[in-house]
């Protein structure tokens, strides 16, 4: 079964600073990987996804993530954080389609605080 670890529960950065949120997964092969953002009182919004191919994926809102197979990681990055990026970020994994369910397994989330 797949699992996801987000080691950082809370992160605080200054506006304009760079950001990296860590995500490690456990799965026997290459899974499908996702980053979601959840703002207070809002639903989940997909930031980006990785299926295969180029290991550096670009997402919305200036976010990118890099898949590193050797480290079983899929860290999320942003070169310059904006105050509006303050939210909860979830890494998620699912197994590639095998004819079974495509349920997502979520990490515990990282709460991002942005200092002005």
């Amino acid at each position: 079964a797949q699992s996801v670890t987000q080691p950082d529960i809370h992160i605080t950065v200054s506006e304009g600073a760079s950001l990296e949120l860590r995500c490690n997964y456990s799965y026997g092969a290459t899974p499908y990987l996702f980053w979601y953002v959840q703002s207070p009182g809002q639903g989940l919004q997909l930031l980006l996804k990785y299926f295969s191919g180029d290991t550096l994926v670009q997402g919305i809102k200036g976010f990118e993530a890099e898949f590193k197979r050797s480290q079983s990681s899929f860290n999320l990055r942003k070169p310059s954080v904006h105050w509006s990026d303050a939210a909860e970020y979830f890494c998620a994994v699912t197994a590639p389609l095998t004819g079974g369910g495509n349920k997502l397994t979520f990490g515990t989330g990282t709460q991002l605080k942005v200092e002005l």
Partner: protein
Amino acid sequence: SAVISQKPSRDICQRGTSLTIQCQVDSQVTMMFWYRQQPGQSLTLIATANQGSEATYESGFVIDKFPISRPNLTFSTLTVSNMSPEDSSIYLCSVVLVWAGGTEAFFGQGTRLTVV
């Protein structure tokens, strides 16, 4: 893509009562998923709902407590039965679209349930 309408968006309920949450999708989908997000926690899958068959529940969740209906390919309901304050959570409906080489999950806005 898929657009999911979930209602109610929030409710305050008395302990011992039941609440039924509705999830409507704008396209036909094979599987629908129900998640629970307890305060300050990540998303936990409750069950997978397939049209025409019994829902499949994850460990720790039982049908008597969370009965699910799936009458057609665009609609599902989740009932939270005999509620207690521990059931206070956000409940989210999700669908997954799958294509060759990829998949993406879409989420409703969630139902914020408070049990008093």
